[in-house]
């Protein structure tokens, strides 16, 4: 007789199972793109523009061709002759592959050399002579819309100026009326600076075109291999079944590895022309100055308030600097992504948002850096605005939030911008956080310290993030709907393989997908292998970003396992010689309802699927599921930080940080906590040191790790994580919500609010991130707001 298996013992839902991936990574046996060597492989390097805006007068590559070991030099002219000088972006714009007419940002791709080894290719790039005629440079939206501004995109006949879009959402008239009746209007204006996701591994590809089979195989650092396959089919005009995209191990993504980059396209064309594999591996500066930036939004807003603290309405305007090409990799129908998820956690009756996007002479931006398409900016502004409003009302920060939260019994809740939030216990999360940080006691300490000239501060941030793009009604990429997929094959011995359309980059899919199958079928997780990232074998899916893996692909894994269980039930009925209606399921085992001792295991059903199926049943135990989520999932979090600011230097130190994340059901608590700590660290980095900007000539300041400071083990504070609050997602098959990005989304405002709280005596309303010591010192010393918008001042 067999009993239901112990779910934790078999590595099911809720088990902090050690990661399967680690076995190879700790031995140095990962397989990243740069580790792959193919027979006859050549190496490609890219020559980039040193200027931010200039007309190309001539390119002389003759000296490059003369270097021994050089096989090919590609220029824009050569690309144009094959109709490949421009490519479509994921936001329905075009982007130069190699510049033909002019360069539009520093670091733009101008030429490529393909040679025997990367050293020779670099030598040859230096031997190419480009004659540039410099043009006036634009580095912010104000310059972009100024009278007489040069038109950056003069390649587009329909583009008379630098404005990409003007867009609005919400109820303008209703918002105006609410503001007219307000007791108090609180205002805030700030810049969310450019940031670069900067995974340690840079981007790269190995294109391998085989003339004999006409098949193109590309190994590529991509978070979304199937989207790339579709894009390559469109750009290179190759038949889709002759394109195979393989995404090997990825050394971090964070949104940087979603877009299609010119380097990928050039390596593909070079391989087709040379009929040899061509490897392109970007160097760090190339990665930092040319690939997927994020943020760079100027946010302005106001909140209409009743005297007692009730929020009556919110009005927002955003000016987004998208760089030279509008290549945001975001799938929503909304021009500024999910910016209008702002204030979703608060009961705001009416709101209105206007958004304008402009071009500039900066690398194309707008990737969702550890966030769901502008949610980071939305939540940052929300929590900075909430802090400002509470201060203007003279109310306690926690009390103001508590009073305005959407209450637990109001779900599903329609936000003023039209989202439908699914579930949450917002006030409870706040209480857990306040208790953990010992709120009342800290306030007392803070007052006492202030009397002695010490500046302590406490910052609260909350966030609810719409995660799991899409549903297919509102989310698509190039027309492809945002569903995801899973395929499950159970072998005869009860072992299994799962493939999904997602592609992990450290999130531990190989570990957690097996846990979902274990939860649904009772097959031990160790008996299940997970495979992703190869478009010839994985079912079609939209990839991993925007914390969508668990909400969408993870849901597909659960659904496909349920299909398998349904067939296994038929097999069990056959084996037990009863009708299906008489069968019950206990994890890992079907049994006869009236005789629980009579049962068969899922493994016995698997054997039967191959060796003893009933007459007329299709053999085998395989299935595929495509999952179109009914809604986004809405995790919630409270982050509370305490800091001490040194008034003489502007340096600030984190005293404590508490994180309360409610992401619904946790598949693998160890992995979830790892995701939260990683996100908190990026939040700390953005608020404290991660600074990449531009001078008036469009030079990227922060173009390498000497200048673009990422936190090390030394600076990074410790974090206290809380998992007491669990509100299962009502529409997800296993009740899970996204988690990978929450802390990076909600965290920055907690740090900034803490520093602003510490220096509240100065009357300063805003200091832009990163809160570098000189900025904080300036705010304290001169009692003025400090802007961080480019161009950077000459004394920076």
């Amino acid at each position, binding site marked *: 007789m067999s009993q239901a298996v112990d779910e934790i013992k078999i590595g099911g839902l809720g088990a902090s199972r050690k990661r399967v991936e680690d076995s190879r990574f700790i031995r140095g046996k*990962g397989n*990243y793109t740069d580790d792959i060597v193919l027979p006859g492989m050549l190496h490609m390097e890219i020559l980039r523009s040193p200027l931010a805006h200039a007309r190309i007068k001539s390119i002389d590559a003759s000296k490059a061709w003369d270097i021994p070991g050089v096989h090919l030099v590609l220029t824009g002219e050569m690309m144009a002759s094959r109709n490949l000088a421009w490519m479509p972006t994921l936001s329905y714009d075009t982007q130069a592959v190699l510049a033909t007419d002019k360069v539009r940002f520093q670091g733009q791709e101008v030429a490529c050399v393909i040679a025997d080894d990367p050293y020779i290719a670099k030598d040859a790039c230096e031997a190419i002579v480009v004659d540039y005629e410099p043009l006036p440079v634009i580095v912010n939206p104000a310059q972009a819309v100024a009278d007489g501004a040069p038109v950056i995109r003069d390649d587009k006949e329909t583009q008379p100026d630098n404005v990409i879009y003007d867009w609005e959402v919400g109820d303008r008239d209703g918002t105006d009326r609410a503001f007219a009746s307000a007791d108090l209007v609180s205002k805030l204006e700030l810049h969310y600076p450019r940031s670069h996701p900067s995974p340690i591994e840079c981007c790269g590809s190995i294109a391998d075109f085989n003339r004999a089979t006409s098949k193109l195989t590309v190994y590529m650092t991509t978070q979304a291999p199937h989207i790339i396959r579709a894009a390559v089919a469109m750009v290179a005009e190759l038949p889709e079944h002759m394109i195979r995209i393989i995404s090997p191990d990825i050394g971090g993504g964070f949104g940087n590895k979603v877009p299609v980059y010119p380097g990928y396209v050039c390596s593909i064309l070079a391989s087709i022309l040379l009929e040899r594999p061509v490897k392109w591996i970007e160097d*760090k500066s190339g990665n930092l100055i040319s690939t997927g930036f994020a943020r760079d939004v100027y946010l302005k807003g106001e909140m209409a308030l009743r005297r007692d603290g009730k929020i009556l309405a919110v009005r927002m305007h955003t000016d987004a600097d998208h760089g030279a090409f509008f290549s945001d990799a975001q799938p929503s129908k909304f021009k500024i992504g999910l910016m209008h998820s702002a204030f979703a956690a608060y009961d705001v009756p009416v709101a209105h948002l206007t958004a304008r996007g402009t071009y500039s002479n900066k690398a194309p931006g707008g990737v969702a850096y550890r966030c769901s398409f502008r949610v980071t900016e939305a939540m940052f502004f929300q929590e900075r605005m909430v802090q400002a409003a509470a201060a203007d009302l003279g109310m306690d920060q926690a009390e103001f939030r508590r009073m305005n939260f959407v209450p637990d019994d109001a779900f599903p809740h329609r936000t003023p911008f039209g989202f439908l939030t699914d579930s949450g216990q917002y006030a409870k999360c706040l209480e857990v956080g306040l208790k953990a940080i010992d709120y009342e006691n800290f306030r007392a300490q803070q007052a006492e310290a202030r009397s002695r000239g010490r500046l302590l501060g406490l910052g609260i941030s909350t966030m609810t993030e719409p995660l799991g793009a899409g549903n297919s009604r509102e989310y698509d990429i190039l027309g492809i709907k945002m569903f995801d997929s899973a395929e499950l094959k159970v072998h005869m011995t009860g072992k299994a393989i799962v493939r999904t359309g997602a592609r992990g980059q450290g999130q531990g899919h190989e570990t957690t997908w097996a846990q979902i199958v274990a939860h649904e079928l009772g097959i031990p997780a160790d008996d299940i292998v997970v495979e992703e990232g190869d478009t010839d074998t994985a079912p079609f899916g939209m990839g991993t970003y925007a914390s969508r893996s668990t909400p969408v692909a993870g849901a597909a894994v659960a659904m496909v396992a349920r299909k398998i269980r349904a067939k296994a039930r038929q097999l069990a009925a056959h084996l037990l010689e009863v009708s299906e209606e008489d069968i019950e399921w206990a994890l890992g085992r079907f049994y006869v309802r009236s005789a629980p001792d009579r049962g068969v295991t899922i493994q016995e059903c698997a054997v039967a699927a191959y060796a003893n199926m009933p007459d007329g049943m299709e053999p085998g135990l395989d299935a595929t599921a495509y999952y179109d989520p009914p809604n986004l999932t809405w995790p919630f979090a409270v982050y509370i930080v305490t800091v001490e600011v040194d008034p003489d230097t502007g340096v600030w130190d984190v005293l404590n940080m508490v994180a309360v994340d409610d992401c619904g059901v946790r598949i693998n608590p160890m992995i979830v906590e790892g995701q939260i700590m990683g996100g908190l*660290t990026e939040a700390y980095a953005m608020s404290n040191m991660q600074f990449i900007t531009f001078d008036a000539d469009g030079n990227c300041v922060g173009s*390498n790790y000497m200048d673009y400071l990422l936190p090390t083990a030394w600076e990074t504070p410790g974090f206290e994580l809380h998992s007491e609050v669990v509100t299962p997602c009502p529409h997800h098959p296993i009740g899970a919500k996204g988690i990978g990005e929450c802390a990076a989304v909600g965290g920055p405002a907690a740090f900034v609010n803490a520093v602003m709280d510490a220096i509240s005596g100065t009357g300063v309303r805003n200091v832009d991130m990163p809160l570098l010591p000189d900025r904080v010192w300036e705010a304290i010393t001169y009692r003025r707001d400090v802007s961080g918008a480019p161009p950077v001042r000459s004394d920076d």
Partner: protein
Amino acid sequence: MTTVYSDRGDDAAAQVPMRRIKFTVNGEKKIAEVEPRLLLAHLIRQGLRLTGTHTGCDTTNCGACTVLVDGQAVKSCTMLAVQVDGREIQTVEGLASASELHPLQEGFREEHGLQCGFCTPGMMLAAKALLDRNPDPTEEEVRWALSGNLCRCTGYQNIVKSVLWAAAKLRAQAPAD
């Protein structure tokens, strides 16, 4: 390590300088012909095909390329291959024996000290250099010793725990004085 050039009728290819070096990697003696400008990281990755040593930043900041040279943690992206002539290199591939993981490798797995895995080999070797000279470090000492190695995934808290886990195991294994 053979490079074949197209014969263009000039002697440009013949002028590429080469140097012969001898060194030990993970206990095995090697001889290589290298260009004087070849970086150690590339000798290890391309020449020796030991791809566990990663290159991340090219400027000695990220530490993904950290190896041990004569027991010292070194960033192999900014050391020339010719500089290891006569010296001993240890890479991540030399940490485990055929049957047993090094306690650092176990520690990283036990304490969830890695996510994407790209920084991990460099982190473990920087940690090994620390534990070789200080078997019982404090958390602060671990954080300082790893401050030349960047990780974008974990937030370091679990990396520090992993190193302390390994230190405890190594101490327990060490023969009593």
